[in-house]
């Protein structure tokens, strides 16, 4: 146990957590953006799978790993647009459409991917940043990966800056919070909902491809299964805040790595640990929604900003101009 703990904090383990989190990182940012705009894309698990396949197939057939990512982004975007269109134009329930799309995409990728099972993998080449990667500890942890890993972290920071530092970002939050108020201020609610859902879908797609082209290479039977549900859980855990969600992703990765390290000593526990993020999320939700605590936290704006969990009020609803 102690050994495993020590192992957990060694540089190589931490570096592997950082590297392995890229797929979840992209998808979590995508889902956060979409939900922030008021559209809950429940198809993540399926659309990650489908885009993981799309990414691998395109990269494999063209023998160019970089072409895999745009293909995956398009796949994720199309699925997301179906959710947005179903809600905005056809007044369908977002949850129902998302769930059906999850099942559809999962089975579709299983079917379409049959002939690609076991094909030789295509991987993103490593790219350590010269100079920075030789810094002790921080070098290997942050700067000794590949372009997609760097991009994942840049996406987190960019999402954060966009949401909280720009006018457009504030509008994005507005349309998911109180669309009628956003409309009153001249924000084109439904047009932006299409845009951000599509953008979020593209990021979910890139997350899928990051998995099949970077984390666990190649195609097998439903390689990304359950990852999308974890994304949905982490978005809530992250309180719809990109940075906190990113911490959630790393925490999840750490728990997984910890579980792997524990396998030799406690074979039985290794099955339990990866599921900890779920009860942990429930505990966090109970805490952050605890009225007395929130009231107390109102006196400490900084603490509350860290712990807050304000779901976009209009999430999952439709907005119509009358």
């Amino acid at each position, binding site marked *: 146990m102690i050994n495993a703990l020590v192992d957990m904090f060694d540089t190589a383990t931490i570096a592997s957590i950082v590297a392995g989190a890229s797929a979840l990182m992209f998808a979590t940012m995508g889902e956060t953006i979409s939900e922030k705009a008021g559209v809950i894309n429940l198809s993540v698990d399926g659309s990650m799978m489908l885009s993981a396949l799309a990414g691998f197939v395109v990269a494999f057939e063209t023998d160019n790993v970089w072409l895999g990512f745009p293909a995956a982004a398009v796949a994720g975007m199309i699925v997301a647009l179906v959710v947005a269109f179903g809600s905005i134009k056809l007044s369908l329930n977002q949850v129902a459409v998302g769930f059906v799309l999850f099942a559809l995409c999962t089975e579709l990728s299983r079917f379409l991917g049959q002939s690609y099972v076991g094909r030789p993998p295509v991987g993103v080449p490593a790219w350590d940043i010269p100079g920075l990667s030789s810094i002790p500890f921080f070098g290997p942890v942050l700067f000794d990966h590949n372009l997609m890993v760097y991009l994942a972290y840049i996406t987190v920071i960019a999402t954060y800056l966009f949401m909280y*530092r*720009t*006018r*457009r*970002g*504030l*509008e994005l*939050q*507005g349309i998911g*919070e*109180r669309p*009628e*108020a*956003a*409309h*009153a*201020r*001249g*924000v084109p609610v439904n047009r932006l909902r299409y845009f951000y859902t599509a953008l979020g879908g593209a990021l979910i797609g890139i997350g899928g491809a990051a998995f099949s082209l970077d984390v666990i290479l190649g195609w097998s039977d439903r390689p990304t299964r359950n990852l999308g549900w974890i994304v949905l859980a982490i978005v809530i855990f992250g309180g719809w805040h990109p940075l906190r969600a990113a911490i959630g992703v790393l925490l999840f990765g750490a728990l997984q790595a910890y579980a792997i390290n524990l396998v030799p000593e406690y074979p039985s526990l290794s099955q339990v640990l990866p599921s900890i993020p779920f009860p942990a999320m429930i505990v966090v939700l109970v805490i952050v929604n605890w009225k007395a605590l929130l009231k107390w936290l*109102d006196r400490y*704006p900084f603490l509350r900003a860290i712990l*807050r969990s*304000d779901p976009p*009020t209009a999430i999952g609803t439709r907005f119509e*101009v*009358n």
Partner: protein
Amino acid sequence: MSLELRDIHKHFGPVRANDGISITVETGTLHGLLGENGAGKSTLMKVLSGFHSADSGEIILDGKTIKLASPVDAIAAGIGMLHQDPLVFLPFSVIDNFVLGSPGERRLDRAAATRELNELSERYGFNLDPETPARLLTVGERQQLEILRLLWLGARVLILDEPTTGISADQRAKLFVTLKALAKEGMSVIFVSHKLEEVADLCERVTVMTRGKVVGEAELPVPPEQLVEMMFGQAIEIRDRDQVSLGSSHLALDSIRTATGLLSEEPISLEVQAGEVIGIAGMEGSGQDTFLRICCGMRAPKEGRVAVGGQDMTGKHYRDYLAADVKYLPAGRLEEGLIEGLTITEHFVLAGEDRSFFVDWGAARKRAVEQVEHYTIKGTEASTAESLSGGNQQRVLLAMLPAELTVLLMEHPTRGLDIESADWVWEQLLARREQGTSILFASADLDELLRYSDRILVFFSGRVIGELDASATNVDEIGLLIGGRRSGTEGVAS
């Protein structure tokens, strides 16, 4: 900016929310728009602020006809609207609420916006901390934030829709000071309210609306009873009442009082006998609904005792009141009375006495068909609640009442009904009365109150300001009381 609305029509399906409305608002005036709930004031203001587009009619600003396709068009033309529930984003900070939607550079310069907010805020004597999230602000402060934002965006006409709902007396005073200052600066302020005394207090001119039409205009001040008459109309004739012999005490309230808010100041006592009809008058929101909810056991009074049929019911559950045959029919027929999506048959099954586990749908439908016929409901047993017109919804509600009733409490029994349905409703109610049911009803229709009540209670700002014998009073006396004046005294009671 002078503003003219010319012949505005706006229909929602068969409902004529605005039926040919023309109003002129002069530059620099405080213009009141007075009318009961549902008179069409909010619809008109939504048309004026670009939220609704009118079916026909013109909006003329400084001599030019303008087209408003969205709220942004309105604010660009200088028309800003403050909604009853201010349209702010609760989790966002004050400053974020202030800048959201404002034109400007891509990057958000919060510091510059904060300076402008503080400047404006100081000018009008508000005290808003830019970093506080809006959910921590009171409704009054959220209004202040919205007013400043609209001014910042260049509003020259400011519309306030029922702004005094949910704010404290202090904040109301402050709001009125601000509005007067704005008018002095040349702003046109339209103050929409159903509260007569506020309009009389604040405004220089008033337009009165009823049922989608303008029914009167006046330069203020005018005697409040004149406004009351415009709002409620003059009673035409009072029919002779059938004398019903009153029976034993059915409902007795002994100095009831709530903890805070309405009905907390003066205890109310009332005894209602079998077969007695009590009318409840007053401006909307003067405590009538709280009173009725106490009578039916939905709300417990803080002090005092309630007895039904001689039996003490104080502190008992709503179910016990129902068991004692006390029934309440609220004003929101579709919101509180019926269930959207359920058919008439299903409603009768839910309301019925039959407690068996399985529903005998065949029998239920048969009974529903009978009821539909008996109560001349326009619809079928399979019609859903929301597909019925207001009058037919009221018929279903009355049809669902149990056969035995001790006390029947109703809000606006005939509001929104055509004359035929209204007469029918009262036929039913008077038949109940013959059987000894005591009826308490709140109404905004003075004619209805005088025609059907034995006694009339007048509510004013959370108190019973008068208890009148209906056969010995008249419209003028009730009108005075509704406006807050006890007859023979000068000045508005507060």
